[in-house]
Structures are given as structure tokens and as C-alpha cells.
């Protein structure tokens, strides 16, 4: 398990990346992160939703209620145009940052 501080720095980037693929609801987002990280990164209600709401209020993502046959209504989030720009910028920064950190701590460990 990673420390909360470590997760905090990257959660927005993960959410934006996942939503870039397809609109998804909150529970699915949590599961996707868990699955893709091989179970290494997990979010619960308390850690995921406040972030989602902040991103929504900042206009990066937007939620819409969708009801599918035989299912409960769920709020599906998708990227907004701003969100797409933010994602591109964050990806660039993340790549540059991790590269720089790797250089510092010794590239062979990367």
C-alpha cells in the first residue's frame, strides 16, 4: 500500500486518464483503478468522492445521471474540454516529474 500523500499527488491524473477512455461512474472508477494497478492502489468513498466533486466543480469533468434497464440510476462522469486540456498538461508534467525523480534516485530503479 502507498501512503495517502503519494496517492493524492496522482489521483486526479488517474481519474482524468480513465475518463478519457470512456464515461464511467464512481464505483467503476474505483474498481478500474484497483484492477489496473494490480490491486496496489485502492480508493474508498472518503478518498474518491471529495476529489470527484472538486474536479466537477472546477469544470474538468461533468456528471450526468443515467438509468439503464434493470439498473439503479448512476452518475456517469465524462471529461469536459477543460478536463482534456488539464489531462494533457498533467500527463506532460507527470512524465517530466517522474523522469526527474528517477534521475535523482537512480535511474536503474525505475
Amino acid at each position, binding site marked *: 500500500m502507498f501512503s495517502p500523500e503519494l496517492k493524492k499527488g496522482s489521483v486526479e491524473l488517474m481519474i482524468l486518464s480513465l475518463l478519457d477512455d470512456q464515461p464511467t461512474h464512481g*464505483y467503476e472508477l474505483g474498481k478500474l483503478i484497483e484492477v489496473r494497478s494490480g490491486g496496489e492502489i485502492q480508493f474508498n*468513498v*472518503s478518498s474518491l468522492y*471529495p476529489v470527484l466533486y472538486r474536479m466537477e466543480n472546477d469544470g474538468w469533468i461533468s456528471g450526468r*445521471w443515467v*438509468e439503464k434497464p434493470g439498473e439503479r440510476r448512476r452518475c456517469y462522469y465524462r471529461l469536459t474540454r477543460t478536463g482534456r486540456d488539464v489531462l494533457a498538461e498533467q500527463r506532460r508534467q507527470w512524465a517530466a516529474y517522474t523522469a526527474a525523480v528517477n534521475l535523482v534516485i537512480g535511474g536503474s530503479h525505475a
Partner: protein
Amino acid sequence: MRDWKAYVRARLGLPALRGLRDERIVEELAGQLEDLCRTHLARGIPEAEAEELAAADVTDWDELARRITSAERKNLPPAAAEWVEDRARDLERRGALGAVAAELVRNIRYALRSARREPGFWAVTVLLLGLGIGATTAIFSVVDGVLLKSLPYHEPERLVYFDGGSFPMPRVADFVEHTTSYATLTGVWDDELDWTGGDRPLQLNAGLVLPEYLELFDARVEVGRLFLEQDFQGAPYRAVLSWGAWQRLFGGDTGVLGRSLTLDGNPVQIVGVLDEGFSSPAGLIGRERDVFVALDPQWEELQVPWFFVVELYGRLGDGATTGAAQSELDAAIARLADVHPQLHRGRDGNLRAVTVLPLQTSLTGSVRGSLRLLLGAVGLLLLIACANVANLLLARGTERHHELAVRSAIGGGRVRILAQLLTESLMYALAGGLLGVVVAIGGVRAFEVWNPSGIPLIERVAVDGRVLVFALAVSLLTGVLFGAAPALQGARLNVSAMLKEGGRAGDGRDRGRLRRTLVVVEIAMALVLLTGAGLLFHSFLRLTAVRPGFDAAHLAGVELRLGEDRYDEQARLQFVRRLLPRIEGIPGVRAAAVSMSVPFQYYGGSRSGWWQDRYVNDEGAEIEQATVIQPVTPGFFATIGADLRGDDLASSAPDESPIPVVVSQSFADRLFDDRNPIGRVFQGLQQRDGLQQLRVVGVVSGLRHWGLDQGDPPMLYVSWERWGADFFMTALAVRTAGDPAAILPALRDAIWELDPDVPLSNVFTVSQRMAQSVATPKFYSALLISFAAVALLLAAGGIYGAMLYTVGRRRHELAVRAALGADGRRLVQLILWQSARVTAAGLAIGIGGALIATRAVRSMLFGVSATDPATLAAVAVLMGTVALGASLVPAWRAARANPVEAMRAE
């Protein structure tokens, strides 16, 4: 499975957020926990344990709430809203009733919130409602003050008035003796008395009252005393002053008690002053007397059957009703007619009927119909305003569908949504009502100022508690009325369709139909109002187009009160002979003459004067024709500028026979059919020695002596010197070169130079009298026209909005048509055609309604029928033109439909 929503809601202490985000968040988190729980269950974990595991996903609810609140800070409501929400939650804890109250509190808050979001929409809606409610409230307060409020007397419902004019004293005695329904039956003789001995002679309005008259109307004295039994003995000699006259004439000096006034030359002693609050029935209709004088019912001068002076008032005794009193009176009159036929039968032998009327009805009967008409008109206006607001709400409803859908989805049932929308309507209505009260206060003030003296009891009109309750009731009713249709529409939304489509769709077709129906109703009601206004206006035009038959623009009149106390026939003759040359010597005066009355000195249906009705025409046929005898001095017709054929009445020898007379055309028609009247000799002017021989020397035609609406009544003009000088009614007519108003002071001076004791309270220009005589119809038509103008505007706004909406909704269709080659003109026609159909439906219904509704104005019309086709056609064309005009902008928009839009949407 646990109710996760309730679980989350109970733990997550979120503040109320804008756009219902708090509700959404609760639902989303609950959904997450439920999903978790299901995952655990799917792994075979028992339900109770699975629920615990899911719940454990949130360890610190407060921390979560804090973090969400931080993320949502821009959706935080202002502190006030938070406070309201806290109170609502408090209420909710108090059971079912509290929950309802909490719901109401929240609904009010939502409504206020949406008002802040759309201030323009609110302003327009509240303004519309405010004007509608305000106008209605203003007219209601007039109706309330005049027709509904009870009179300011003790047990006013028992007070009655004998409707049958004034009665001679012996007949009054018969009534008193032969009826038992009344605890009190008393009367008053309204007279104008000349008070001399002050600085200037004054004319006082006097009520010569029978015993108990003042007591009947709860009189109390400020100083002195009311009348005692011994005051009612012999000639009138004891007086009580009204408070107003006491202030006005004596500056409130208590020294007036015991003072003697010279009234019509007789000494009358003041014994008391009434208190400020006293108002006799005449006072209630703005004609309070200055002085009340005790009148002895046995006074010998009144014991004649032909002196019609006393008006009767009574208080019904215990258990008596108006109906029973009427039956008793009818029976008494029928019985007494055999004993005193001269009192109880008219000249035609029929019984002189008397109606026992409730006092209030008798005071307000003349305006009852007009006021009801105004109330009806203003009610229609309010309905139109409601339809307009309903239309606005429907139009806006489209934009709010998403919000409503969310609310409905998060557990708000139809009833809750209906309640929310109705709450919102009621808030609009109450705000409109508040504005309406302000409008009403202004309106009532304007009404009082403008009131053309036609409306009695107007002083009692006020925007008071009763009126406020009315305004509140009307506001609530209005709120339900205009809110119902949009609310029902809102509650019928198809939620899932709405959510899927992002809140753009709706039952557009339905909504469009409802809006068009509202517009049809608006047009119909506006047309009814327009027709009423049109009829009154048409009637007013007809009335003012009537030619008076004399030159009113250069005519002044003076009522000369040459009372019996100081003037006999000879004195009057001398006075007039000296007066006329003096008047004609005033610079700017062209001519002067004396008559019994000047045209328009009396108007409004009363023809004061000397009446005679027995004539024998030139062929010996006896003809009964009620005719006013008008004594005039030579030159009268030239002075007033009348259209005279034949000769004027020259100064004639006192014994000339046949007596030369001038007749009105209508009189000539009645007596001589189509024979030339000039030179014909006939009999009339009944004297003690029988009918006199009369010879027609001239005919005057089209002279409207008593008002423009009074036609050309039969009149007979005779020499004033021979027939008028012995009568106290005298008036001076003066023809001027310029504005007659300018010489009024000079007229007064000239008269007072001859006799400083002649009271001159009635010096006037005839054109001003003429304007007053049409002031009432002008008032009603102006008021109705202003209502109708507003109605027209509202209806135009309604059709504009509906057409704009239609164009918006059909934008895609229009674009496709444009893409397929329809040119702009074709598209304009399309929209105008739809507008025309709506308008035509409105007009058809409106004309039907108008034909029924205009019956209410029938009695107020002059020279126009209530179903006047010209008026109906004119207002229908006006309404139609305005409606089509209002559709032009939407149609023009349609014409600019862009074909590219059609592609884009595909």
C-alpha cells in the same frame, strides 16, 4: 438490503447545496455503498456482515463531510439559506405535520433561490400580477366602501328610506298613523336657506328635521344640546349647527350658542353644535347640511297636499323586516287612497307607490350597476394577467425541466413537485399582491381625486384591513389559477426521458397546445373588455357630438336667489330692470337676459322648474303633455344663441291676449303635428280662472336645456315679467365676447352693488357645467379604455410569446423546409397562419362573450346599442391587427431559419 440513502443521509451532515447537489451526493454515495455491499454478497458473505463491511468503507463521516463541503464550497448557500435549512430540519423532527411545514419552508427557499437566478423573469411576472391585483383591489375597495361596508349607524340594517320622492306633510302624517313596523319614522326637508347678516350673504344647506331625525342617525352634540320637544312648535326657530359649518362659519367659537341667525329673513336660534363624527345620510353622499332646523309636523304652512318637501327615514322595529314593512305600507296606501285620494293617488288616478328601501341601497342604488361593471372589467383584466403569467411559467418550464426531473428522481413524488411549483406560484402571487396593494393605494387616491362627484360614500373608501384581506385572497386565488396548469404540466414530466436527453425535451406538443389555448382565452377576454370600452367610448363620442342648440362657449350663468323674505313680485321686477342694463354695461358682455333657469344650470335628469301638463290645441283636442314653463325676458334666445324661428318674446302688455309664447319644436310637434306652429292659438298655462289663450310667435329647436343626453324636451317660453317675477327661481344668462370665466367677478360685483344681501353661491360658465355633465360617462369610458388597453397589450404579449415559442420549437422543421427550398415568405406565412388561427378562435369566443357581457353596460349607453355591430367590428379588427402585428417578429425569425442548422442537427 439496508436503505443506504437514509443511512448516508443520517450520517453525512452536508449543508444544503445549490442545485440540490447535496441530495445528489447522498444518492451517489449511497449507491457506492450499495454496490460495495452487493460485491460482498456476491462473494458469499452473509448479508449482515456484507453490510457492515460496506459501511466500514467510510470510517470518519465528519471528515468526509468536511472534505466534500470543501470541494463544494462554491455551491454553498448563503448563511441565511443555511439557517432556513436548519430550521426546516428542526421542523422535520417534530413528526408528520412538521415534515409538511419543513417541506413548505424548503419550497419557499427554492422559489426565492430561483427568483435570484432569474430576476428579470420575476420582475416581469410580479409586475404583471401587481398591476392586475392592484387594479382589482383598488376597484374592490371602492365597491367595498360604497356598497358593502355597513353604514356608520347603530344597527344600520334596520334603517330604511321611503323611496317615492318627497312627501307632503299630511301624507307623512298618514304614514305615521297607519304603520306599525317602525320604531322611529321621521323625515327631513332639504332646503337652501339664505343667511344674511354676516359679511356676505351666504346660502346654507339646511335640513328642516322632524322630531327624532337627528337621534335616528345617532347624533351627539359637541356643545349645547339637541332639539327638545318644545323646539318643534310653530314656525322653525331653533337650529343645530353641523360641526363643519361651525368651524367654517364661526371658527369653532362656543359663543355661537344662543346666537340668532337670520335665515331667509327669519330669526333662528342656535341651541347646539353636532360633534365632528356625525354624518346624516346626505352627509354620507357628500352633501352634509350646514344647519339643522327643528320642523314642527303640525306647522300650518305644511298642511297642504301639494307641497312635496319631506323625505322619510325610519328604523324598523323589533322583528320587522323590509318586506313586511313594504306589504304593510302597500296595504295602508291602498286603504287610505279612498280616504285621502289627493294624497295617495296621482293625477292619473293610480296609487302613488312608495318603496321601503334599506338605507344603504337607497344611497348607492345609482352607482351599483356601474361599480359592478368596473369590478367585472377589472376581474377580466386580472384573469388575462393570470393567463399571461401562466404562459410565462410554461415557457420557462422548459428550461427547468431538468431540475424538476432531478427532484422527481431523488424521491420527490408528483405531489411534492406539484407542491413546489404551486409554492413558487403563490410566492409570485404574494409578491404581486404586495405590489398590488401599493398600486391599489395609488389607484384609490386617483379614483377619489378623479371621482366626478357621481359616486356616493366615496369618503368611506380606504385600503383597510378588509381590503387587505381581499388582496390576500385574490393573490392566493391568482397564484393557484396561473400556477395550476404549469404545475400540472411539470408534475407530468417523463422523468427518465428527460434525464436521458439532458433536459432538453419535454411534452412540447402538449405544452404548445396549452399555451395556445391560454392565448385564445386571453384574446377572447381582451375582446370582451375592448368591446365594453369601445361601446362606452362610442357612446361618449355620440354624447359629446350632440349639438346643444345654443352657444355654450360664450355663456355665463348666475342663480339669483331673490327669496320670498325680501322680495315680492314688484321688488323682483325692479331689481331685474335695474340689473340688466348694468350687466350689459360690463365690458366684454354682449347681452344679458333673465329666465327661470339657464341651460345646464340643472343637469343629470332633474328638470327643476315650473311644470304644467294640460293643453288644448288649435283644433280643440285636449292634450296631456308634461311641459316645463320657462319665463324669459326679451332677448333671452339671442343671449344664449339659440336657434329661434319666428319672433322673440317682446315686452308685452300685461293683459295682451292671446298671450304670446315661444315653444320648443318637440312641444309644437306634440300639439300641432306637422302644421306650421307659428301664429297658432291654443290653450294652456292653467290659472285659477282656467286655461289661458296662447299664441305661438316663435319656435326654438334642438335646445338641450337639461343636458346633452336629455333630448329636446317639450318647453313653453313665456314672458318673465308677466309669469316669472312672482316666482323665487330666477337666473341670469350672460353672453360674452370672450371667455365667460373672466367676467364672473364683475357679474358678482354688479349684483352686489344693487343688493349686497343676495347670496351668490352659484355663478358659473355654461361650458364648465356642460363638461361636468359628461364627466361621469367620460370617467367610466376612460377607466374602461385604460383597462382594455392593458388587456390588449397583455394579449399581444401573450401571442408574441406563444408564437416565439412555436418558432423555437419548430426551428428544426423550419430549417428543413428552408433546406428544401421554402423561401422566407413561405415561412412567414406559415407562422402567421398559425397565429391567425389562434387569433380567430379567440375572436370568435370573444365576440360571443361580448354579446352576453355588454348587457351590463346597456344602461350606461347613449345613442349606441349594446350589440352595436360597428363597435364590435372595430374592436375585433383592432384585436386581430394587434395580434397579427405581435406575430410579425416571431414570423420574421422563422423566415431566417438556417438550412445549415437542419444538416447540423442530423
